[in-house]
């Protein structure tokens, strides 16, 4: 049985509005909302706040960093690699149409943080109960 590829190639760009010769990316909300890459978000943070995103600054905004969305704020703040599973990066973004969601897809049930990371596991689609 042959199966189609389950991947889709996309561009890594998004249009920005130009006001004459002036372009301020941070004022392009649609564009800012599409930036997903952690390194790109760190640079974007600096553009918006004119400071580097160090721990002290990030702690000032525990939930949502002004100018960024919740998931972008979370992404800047959170180490990508799981502290309890070396080499694993179980947290990521799931795309729903034009919106994104940050989810954990870890399957290490013996981890002490499992219930905390995947509180809805029992009701999630495609996960064996």
């Amino acid at each position: 049985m042959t199966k189609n590829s389950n991947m889709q190639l996309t561009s890594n760009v998004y249009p920005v509005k130009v006001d004459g010769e002036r372009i301020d990316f941070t004022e392009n909300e649609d564009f800012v909302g599409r930036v997903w890459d952690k390194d790109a978000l760190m640079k974007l943070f600096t553009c918006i706040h004119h400071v580097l995103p160090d721990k002290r600054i990030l702690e000032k905004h525990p939930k949502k960093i002004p100018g960024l969305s919740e998931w972008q704020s979370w992404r800047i703040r959170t180490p990508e690699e799981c502290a309890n599973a070396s080499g694993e990066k179980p947290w990521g973004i799931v795309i729903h149409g034009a919106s994104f969601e940050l989810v954990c897809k870890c399957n290490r049930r013996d981890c002490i943080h499992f219930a905390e990371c995947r509180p809805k596991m029992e009701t999630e689609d495609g996960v064996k109960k």
Partner: protein
Amino acid sequence: MNEFFGIDFGTTNSAVVGRLRQNTTQYDDGTGQPFPSLVAISRDTGKVQAIGREAWNHRLELAESCEILSSAKMYLGTDKVWRIGPEAWTPESVVTEVLKGLRSRVSERGSGAVLDSAVIAIPVGFAPEKRRALRKAARDAGIDIKGFVSEPTAAVFRNFEKVYQWPTVAVFDWGGGTLDISVVSIRGDVIEEIATVSNQLGGDVLDRMLAEWAHMQILRKGSRNGPPFDGMGTIYRDLLLSQCEMAKRTLVNEDLAEISVLRYGEFGTVNLVLTEEKFSELLRPKINEAIATLEEGVQNRARLSFDQIGCIVMVGGSSKLRGLRASMDKKGWSCDIQFPPDSEWHVADGAAILSSSFGEYISAQSIGIRLCDNTVYPIIKKGEKASFHSHVATFGLVEDVDNARFVFVECKDGAGGGQTSMDKILGYLSVPAYGFSNEPIRLNSQIDDDLLLQVTARSQNKAKMHELTWTYGDVRFSYQLPKRI
């Protein structure tokens, strides 16, 4: 006042037609036929010795001292080089000589007309690099290309008065190099190719088939072993091929044709008679293949039945074959099948009509960029006029990488834009970038005179030398007729 010219630049033959008001002039080569796309170049000097009919008529003698170049059209846009004597000949320079030959045909008539500009008909899917090379070759021959038109669309123009009442028409264009099928819709004054299919089964394939048969008869007559057809010298192969081509033409109207060669290598003088019956029997498999190609175009590509086709227009020299007409009649299709008597001139004449009053190309598809969030940003919309298409947009990178990637897709919905894209990928463009947050990537798209979609992109933080272009030559266009047709 100068005439308006149309050129059908073919693989084996080229035709030029001039139009002035209601007068049409077919610039034949003195035999009533189009001009053979043939150039003989001296092996000693590397200079042109003969072109067109003269080269064709004296192939045997010329072959002793010359390289005879045919089918240069097939190599246009490639790196092919013929090193002959002290000269290096490119496909472009060979084509220039053929076009100069056409130009001479026009001036030799003495009517005062000068072939200095023309619309040129090109095959469906003629690659961008081939179009550019053809434009340059024409310029070198002193001909300015006013525009390109696809060969089937040109054939529809030529026969417009006979076909305009049908909403859907098929064009069967069987030339020397290829067989091209196009299914064309006609809505008011707008013509659109809705499906095309091409087969390398040109008239030269039929000539070779006949030559191989003739060679086999020669071997049998001699009652001895001899080299196979491919083992014969180039001169003798060409000679037998040209005799077979003449026999093929003869059998369009006659029941018998002679194949005579004075010196066919070690076989000496050979004489064969080919009957129409034998000819039809030999060619039947190829005729069936040609009809299968037509069925592929109508039924599989256009997804239509033959009942939905109003008319089939048969053009190109090979569509005159008697066996073809009989085989098509047997199919029992209800559509009208038209075999115009001078079909080898129809494509050039259609191009000449366009030359006299150019209409407007309109995009028949929407093309856009599949963005990072899987939506589509349209760059050209269905219904947009090609001559007005110019689009500039600025993009930003959503990841920290050293290149900006653009994925170009065809939008099925028509208008394009906004919706999630599950559309067909047409191409890619990746331009260097620094990966800064505030790094504008400027994109510019337009349709050039060769009907190529050119999309250039560059990071504004990078020098001009980093600008890159994606060229797409398969944009589907419909054609809005000029008012007077």
